[in-house]
């Protein structure tokens, strides 16, 4: 947000950057071959809902298409609200490519309907020596690793190593203070 906007007190939410979402596809291969993390059949999109009937229409359209693709590719979905009233579209499919396509579809529809600003994050779950989430920050257009440990701790060491190894394969958020954890995700 520009300095002038700040001076005049204007607030605009940044638009979603969806173009880097696909980077996870190729990165998943390296993750598996060199680090032993396999896709765990689950992904999700986290959305900040808006009080507006246009948003409700967009959401209905998302659900419609999710139903279609469920028949088509066998991707299961559920839509849930978490305790902070954010909406989660949770997808499950053993085929990782189908998950990536599903996430892409959800974010694309919302962006086309003018609600790209409400896309908070996309999350992919991986399994290896620990459970690993790659979180895509739509506002930054970059991924970051999230490895929850016991309680509300995170395995920072592991996350930093993942960053170091994967930095060439996918766009990774450079500012580690923006590696926002997301506790209690519905996946």
């Amino acid at each position, binding site marked *: 947000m520009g300095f002038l906007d700040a001076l005049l007190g204007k607030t605009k939410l940044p638009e979603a950057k969806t173009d880097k979402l696909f980077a996870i596809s190729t990165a998943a291969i390296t993750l598996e071959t060199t680090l032993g993390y396999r896709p765990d059949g689950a992904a999700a999109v986290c959305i900040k809902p*808006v009080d507006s009937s246009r948003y409700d229409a967009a959401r209905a359209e998302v659900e419609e298409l999710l139903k279609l693709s469920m028949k088509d590719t066998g991707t299961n979905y559920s839509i849930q609200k978490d305790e902070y*009233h954010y909406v989660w579209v949770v997808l499950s499919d053993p085929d990782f490519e189908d998950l990536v396509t599903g996430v892409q579809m959800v974010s694309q529809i919302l962006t086309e309907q003018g609600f790209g600003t409400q896309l908070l994050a996309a999350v992919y779950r991986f399994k290896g020596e620990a459970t690993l989430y790659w979180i895509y920050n739509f506002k930054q257009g970059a991924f970051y690793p999230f490895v929850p440990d016991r309680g509300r701790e995170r395995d920072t060491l592991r996350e930093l190593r993942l960053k170091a190894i994967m930095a060439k394969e996918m766009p990774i958020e450079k500012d580690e203070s*923006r590696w*926002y954890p997301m*506790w209690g995700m519905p996946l």
Partner: protein
Amino acid sequence: MLLTMFLLGVLYLAFLAFLLYMNVSQIGIILFMGGFMFLQYFYSDKMILSSMGAKIVSESEAPRLYEMVRRLCQNANLPMPRIAVVRTDMANAFATGRNQSHAVVAVTTGIMNRLNAQELEAVLAHELTHVKNRDMMVLTIATFLSSIAQIIVQWLPFIGFGGDDREGNSAGGAALAFVVSLVVWIVSIILIRTLSRYREFAADRGAAIITGQPANLISALQKISGQRVAREDLRRVEGPVSALFITPAISGGIMKLFSTHPPLEARVAALERIEMELEA
């Protein structure tokens, strides 16, 4: 808002020109005040936190608060501020800190008890918008010369004007300086308060946009402003701009012109308009 800023600028330039024209030894005062305001600006976060009895909390002490602020910051692409809690039953919240990386957002235990999660989130978004809009900086700059005028008004009767006056009409000069400073002081306060009300509207608007739900802020404002509690606690913080509250510590009452916050009805009406915009 632009007009208010412009008028304030014109007023201050005229005042500076006047001080220079009067061949002032008051430059010392200006430098002194400048230094003082700079320090206040620089240490505002620490000063306000200690004067309010606000304590910076860690994530393990306030996990829900952290999660709410974090998601709002992520959605609006803002850096994460520090988070503080004030132990008082009075429901209020404020933001302080000289820039985005030194920002602190504080809430009272009273507001956390009274509001539900979504209302609290709306209040947090309001404060985050203050941070994003650099309201601390805007209002500190706006207050600077006004404070000098105030000092001249308050101290001139005792110290006289500018030591030895070569034209020998020291008394006349002092009287003129007093009157001019008084006018500048009063007019600038009205302008600053007007500006402050604009910033509040902007913060309300920002909160509505960031949360996507103007109704939550409306019900939060209605809940907090309905309170009838002792206001003494916050009184000492009023005065120099050092924190940006969700609702005024002291309600202006008599004169709307001097109020730092718009009246509740106007804020609710503005938020309802945003609700219509979101629908359109």
